[in-house]
């Protein structure tokens, strides 16, 4: 089969063909997909040449869905089943959502993350987001003419672990191979930096529909190093709309409105806000279901006044990020505006005033994140062009810690630590003969557990009975390059080792994903198995190619016995991949992956030494 045509071990494989990869900006209000074609990043459009897909999903009684503009057209007539701004609910419980009383949905407060009762059944925000992602994936595959190798999906930099986990789950549910979760401001910086070959300190002010981020980056010779990030994952253009909405209720002497009128008035409020970006006054007109007309006039100054406190919040978060980076506003060489909400003139003025310079807006603030994500996706998929090299070093936005005695938080990983990161801390038992220890993982900056977000709880069992204080329990936090956390705990003094690894409880379990995938595709179990087999075959191919490449460049790191062992496992894997036995294929993949670990470590060692030797050569040449 063509899938597994390979060169002999040790010989160079054929040059890679271009792999289809996309960047997806999954926004609160609108979403986009972009790719790099013929070396240029471009946003992919629908049949009607529209780049933005409204992030709106409508559920119909027959179980089908409408996504985007079609759903948008029904948002006022069918508000309960038409979900807008679902991003605000990702990884959130009902009590976390602001103005919940003004939302037309029938919420179900499930543990960890809320759910919404629709005419087509109960839906989690992960499933709703997956509908949007699936639509974008389809758009990309149609316009690129092939299956995607993978996608970079962007998230607000200030998203916590629960929100990131939920986003990744949504992408998996949409059948996307997530190459990386990328922070939105970092993606924007990438788009700008590469366009302008920028160097120095840059601030990215990203005010989207529902989230605000401020990232401070240092650009040096193609390295994008995030120094600090700050923000508010529940502050965005929606809140400005809501202020206008509340103002309209007051002015028109209205109180409790039915859901359809709430939605109608919110839509009109948003339209008024947008109109005020280009003219000094506008009118807000709506005919309510009672037949009553609302007809109000609003000026830009009044609008700026009623939303000034929201702008002030973004400035406070910006100053905090600057302070965290150890910098002053004057150190910043350029300020980039990202997100549709930065079109508001009073927002622009405030940012210009804070930094003492006019912000940059040359790239469309709606598209810049998707463009940066597409560039990163292109590189991560393996379409790297020599000489066109960059590296993103990002940070974790919020501190991670553990609950200790008295409901206090012991911080293990500080906010703004560069990722990936692994940190361990030792704890001990406080009672004689204690055999179990409860571990509660939290995220946030406050001292008290109750003021932080609870991410996961688990128990380390099987600690051998010892005197109080004698056990040594080592808890390790590991945050990967996606900003996702894994925690493990181990008792180290005794011969007995108990260990457990958790994923935060807000994320879905793998079997949930599998079940949802099956449901969403309405497919039989046989289909699922065929899909699983195909995914494993792709994984096998990728592993074989990677091993091939490693052997081609670094064969000399292995002695003959080691080389032969790897070659044998490669042969085994090629055979298994063609045989159609899922379990045997999985085993063969694991065996080869395991068998190449030492080679991977030696290769890494060699490349570090080579890199450092290169520095010495440069130094000599410089003199």
């Amino acid at each position, binding site marked *: 089969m063509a899938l597994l045509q390979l060169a002999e071990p040790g010989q160079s494989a054929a040059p890679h063909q271009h*792999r289809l990869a996309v960047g997806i900006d999954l926004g609160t209000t609108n979403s986009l997909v972009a790719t790099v074609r013929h070396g240029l990043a471009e946003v992919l459009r629908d049949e009607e040449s529209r780049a933005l897909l409204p992030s709106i999903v409508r559920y119909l009684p027959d179980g089908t869905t409408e996504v985007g503009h079609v759903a948008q057209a029904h948002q006022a007539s069918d508000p309960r089943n038409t979900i807008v701004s679902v991003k605000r609910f990702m990884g959130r419980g009902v009590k976390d959502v602001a103005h919940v009383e003004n939302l037309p949905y029938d919420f179900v407060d499930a543990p960890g993350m809320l759910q919404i009762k629709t005419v087509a059944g109960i839906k989690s925000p992960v499933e709703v987001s997956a509908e949007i992602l699936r639509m974008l994936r389809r758009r990309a595959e149609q316009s690129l003419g092939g299956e995607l190798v*993978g996608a970079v999906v962007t998230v607000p930099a200030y998203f916590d672990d629960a929100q990131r986990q939920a986003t990744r789950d949504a992408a998996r549910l949409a059948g996307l191979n997530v*190459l*990386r979760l990328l922070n939105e401001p970092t993606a924007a910086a990438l788009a700008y930096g590469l366009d302008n070959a920028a160097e120095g300190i840059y601030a990215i002010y990203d005010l989207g529909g529902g989230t605000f981020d401020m990232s401070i980056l240092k650009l*040096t*010779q193609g*390295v994008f190093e995030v120094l600090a990030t700050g923000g508010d994952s529940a502050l965005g253009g929606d809140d400005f709309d809501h202020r206008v909405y509340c103002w309209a209720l007051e002015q028109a002497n209205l109180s409790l409105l039915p859901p359809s009128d709430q939605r109608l008035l919110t839509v009109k409020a948003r339209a008024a806000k947008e109109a005020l970006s280009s003219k000094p006054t506008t009118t807000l007109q709506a005919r309510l279901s009672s037949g009553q007309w609302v007809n109000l006039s609003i000026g830009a100054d009044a609008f700026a006044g009623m939303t000034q406190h929201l702008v002030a919040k973004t*400035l406070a978060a910006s*100053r905090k990020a*600057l*302070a965290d980076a150890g910098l*002053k*506003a*004057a150190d910043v060489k350029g300020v980039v505006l990202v997100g549709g909400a930065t079109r508001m003139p009073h927002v622009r003025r405030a940012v210009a*005033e*804070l*930094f*003492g310079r006019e912000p940059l807006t040359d790239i469309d603030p709606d598209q810049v994140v998707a463009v940066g994500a597409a560039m*990163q996706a292109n*590189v*991560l*998929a*393996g379409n790297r062009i020599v000489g066109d*090299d960059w*590296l*993103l*070093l990002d940070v974790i936005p919020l501190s991670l810690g553990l609950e200790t005695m008295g409901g206090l938080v012991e911080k293990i990983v500080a906010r703004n*630590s*560069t*990722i*990936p*990161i*692994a940190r361990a801390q030792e704890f001990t038992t406080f009672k004689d003969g204690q055999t179990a220890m409860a571990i509660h993982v939290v995220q946030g900056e406050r001292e008290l557990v109750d003021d932080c977000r609870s991410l996961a709880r688990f128990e380390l069992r099987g600690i051998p009975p010892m005197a109080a204080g004698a056990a040594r329990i080592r808890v390790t936090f*590991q945050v*990967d*390059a996606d900003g996702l956390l894994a925690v493990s705990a181990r008792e180290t003094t005794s011969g007995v080792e108990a260990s457990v690894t958790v994923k935060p409880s807000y994320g879905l379990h793998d079997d949930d994903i599998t079940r949802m995938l099956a449901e969403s595709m309405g497919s039989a179990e046989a289909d699922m198995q065929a899909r699983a087999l195909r995914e494993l075959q792709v994984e096998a191919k*990728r*592993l074989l190619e*990677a*091993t091939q490449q*490693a052997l081609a460049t670094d064969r000399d790191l292995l002695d003959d016995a080691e080389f032969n062992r790897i070659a044998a496992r490669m042969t085994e894997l090629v055979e298994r991949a063609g045989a159609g036995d899922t379990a045997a294929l999985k085993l063969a*993949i694991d065996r080869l*992956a*395991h068998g*190449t*670990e030492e*080679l*991977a*470590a030696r290769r*890494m*060692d060699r*490349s*570090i*030494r*080579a*890199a*450092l030797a*290169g*520095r*010495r050569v440069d130094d000599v040449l410089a003199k």
Partner: protein
Amino acid sequence: MTDPRHDHFALFDLPPRFALDEASLEQAYRRVQAEVHPDRFAAAGAAERRVAMQWSARANEAFRTLRSPLARAAYLCERHGQPIEAESNTAMPAAFLMQQMQWREELDEARTGEREAAQALAREVEARRDEVLARVASALDERHDYADAAAGVRELHFIDRFRDELAAYLSDDSTPEGGH
């Protein structure tokens, strides 16, 4: 000791000393990350992706440690068998404790009185901090008296905690930056 898998200095090919050229450290850090960062292995096999994450985390930890003078000094002390153990080893010289007491009293007075008093105190703390850092530097690089270096690092932990409190007080009612 010189295996880059375990030693921070060896990882960046830098001499294991307190005196350090920051530009060289930053350059070496970026060079190492350029080789080991997981983004370089997104299309590689599972083993390589795992190794990349471990190495990249190692490089971040080493950079974080070496970049901060205090953490670097503590690391060097540990490397020479003089762990800091800041939590358990809190026995400090009497003269040092007396000075800490005096500083805290001055800060309390400044809270109710003149802002200039707090600024003067901040300058004093800064000067004292520089002195102790210089002592630690000479203990590590010249005198090779690692016990004295460790004692200095412990003092610096105290000084820095006080310095943070003072900075928090000073920035509390300061005017916001920018806008001119």
